[in-house]
């Protein structure tokens, strides 16, 4: 078309034709250079196919480098090339179909894997090597190694980090009392108790309950949440914002909760409304936003029973079997267990001091 047009104009305007010709040449030259010098960081110029061809070229060259590399010092260069490739994908990610992105990322992770394998072949493992066996397969020698290195320091670091969080632990056949009034305890733990009676007076932010057998736990309001695991044959009288009960068996719960209580992996649980009394509990409940009965004690969600019909794992405790009001007469502290309690309180105070110090 254009040629014909040009030829018709040829006689009339030689100069114009020449100009046009030059322009066409310029355009095609520009197009050519654009194709050749397409830069990875100018997304305007790269369509998906152009990206893919660049990507594949780059991948091939990395593959070749990986195959030919025999000198460890080359590994760094290869690693940089892979990062560049990754960058290319990231920069183009906004216009690529998600399939291409995923497959490109997969390719990159494969490349990294081969680089890792190569580097473990080329660079002798000084720090961790086992002398008795030459490397048969990479994975076999690495598994025991990583297990050792991961598990051991892991424990030491967590032990180091674990402050002795305030709590009542490892007791049998005792009456234990903790008063949160005036203390600045935030989270409190009750764990590993057998046949104990625990009285928690005042507000606390969060309560953790673990591994109890045949215990009675009476607690003032918990402002945040209660998290409970592994309890058996217990009675709980609790008030809180949220409560989560896991791995519980044959236990009764007298609850006041602002949200729906949940149970998971539990059975034989019975629920009734909160019934605790002690001097000043009204104030504490109000402070925790728990002064009104919500009726949620009966709205239990069982995560192991996601159906419309009632879960077989819990029921409402029949009224005639409920304990009535429980009054924590703190004077009862002056019992034969008094010395034990003092000890416990001393210990807690010491923990407190250590915490604040």
């Amino acid at each position, binding site marked *: 078309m254009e040629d014909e047009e040009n030829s018709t104009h040829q006689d009339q305007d030689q100069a114009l034709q020449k100009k046009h010709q030059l322009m066409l040449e310029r355009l095609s030259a520009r197009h050519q250079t654009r194709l050749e010098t397409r830069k990875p960081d100018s*997304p*305007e110029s790269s*369509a998906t196919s152009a990206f893919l061809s660049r990507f594949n070229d780059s991948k091939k060259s990395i593959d070749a480098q990986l195959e030919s590399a025999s000198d460890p010092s080359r590994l760094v260069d290869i690693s940089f090339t892979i*990062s560049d490739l*990754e960058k290319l994908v*990231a*920069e183009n*990610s*906004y*216009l690529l179909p*998600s399939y291409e*992105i*995923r497959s490109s*990322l*997969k390719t990159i*992770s494969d490349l990294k894997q081969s680089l890792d394998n190569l580097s473990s072949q080329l660079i002798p493992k000084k720090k961790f090597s086992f002398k008795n066996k030459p490397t048969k397969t990479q994975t076999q020698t690495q598994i025991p190694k990583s297990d050792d290195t991961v598990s051991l320091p*892991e424990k030491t*670091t*967590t032990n180091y*980090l*674990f*402050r002795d*969080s*305030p709590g009542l632990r490892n007791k049998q056949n005792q009456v234990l009392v903790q008063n949160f009034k005036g203390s*600045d*305890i*935030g*989270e409190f*733990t009750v764990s590993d108790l057998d046949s104990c009676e625990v009285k928690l007076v005042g507000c606390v*932010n*969060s309560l*953790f309950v*673990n591994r109890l057998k045949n215990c009675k736990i009476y607690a003032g309001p918990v402002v*945040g*949440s209660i*998290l409970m695991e592994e309890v058996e044959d217990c009675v709980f009288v609790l008030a809180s*914002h*949220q409560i*989560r009960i*896991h791995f519980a068996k044959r236990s009764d719960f007298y609850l006041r909760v*602002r*949200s*729906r209580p*949940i149970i*998971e*992996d539990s059975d034989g649980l019975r629920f009734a409304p909160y019934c605790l009394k002690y001097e000043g509990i009204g104030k504490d409940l109000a402070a925790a*936003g728990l002064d009104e009965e919500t009726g949620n004690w009966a709205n239990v*969600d069982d*995560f*192991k029973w*996601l159906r419309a019909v009632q879960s077989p794992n819990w029921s409402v405790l029949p009224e005639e079997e409920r304990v009535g009001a429980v009054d924590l007469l703190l004077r009862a502290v002056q019992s034969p267990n008094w010395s034990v309690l003092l000890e416990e309180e001393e210990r807690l105070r010491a923990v407190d001091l250590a*915490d604040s110090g």
Partner: protein
Amino acid sequence: MGLLSIIRKIKKKEKEMRILMVGLDNSGKTTIVLKINGEDTSVISPTLGFNIKTITYQKYTLNIWDVGGQRTIRSYWRNYFEQTDGLVWVVDSSDLRRLDDCKMELDNLLKEERLSGASLLIFANKQDIKGALTPAEIAKVLNLDAMDRTRHWEIVGCSAYTGEGLLEGFDWMVQDIASRIYMLD
């Protein structure tokens, strides 16, 4: 070029980001989402299933998927991985006993290929509770420094109860995602 510019325009107009919130049960995921959206946080039941919240944050639209963390439903997390731009991992900093669980679940998540491109924000929640570990201590326990170097991550201490730190965390994440996806701006 015509099609490309259309695609670019659509992307620019939408400015949508998909955020996945996960973490152990009782870590405060739902409370964080409601708090940042300015809603009442005083009556929140443990999440049975998931919640989706669409909120406008700066000039972006965030689709936040808040998925329940109870043990039974953790196996369903995988159903929400697709096309996640930002991953928020929420930690109860006062739950010292389950830090190992927390680390294990996070490690599993980070192995997931479909999440490999997502920015990772770790919220060390419940900083208002006395006795909670600091973000630095949480980072140490979770061994975050050993993470794959290509991952964009950040740990931020926060309290969903007071709201402290929440904006700081979301600011980082939104900026990070924007710089990856909307490079043209």
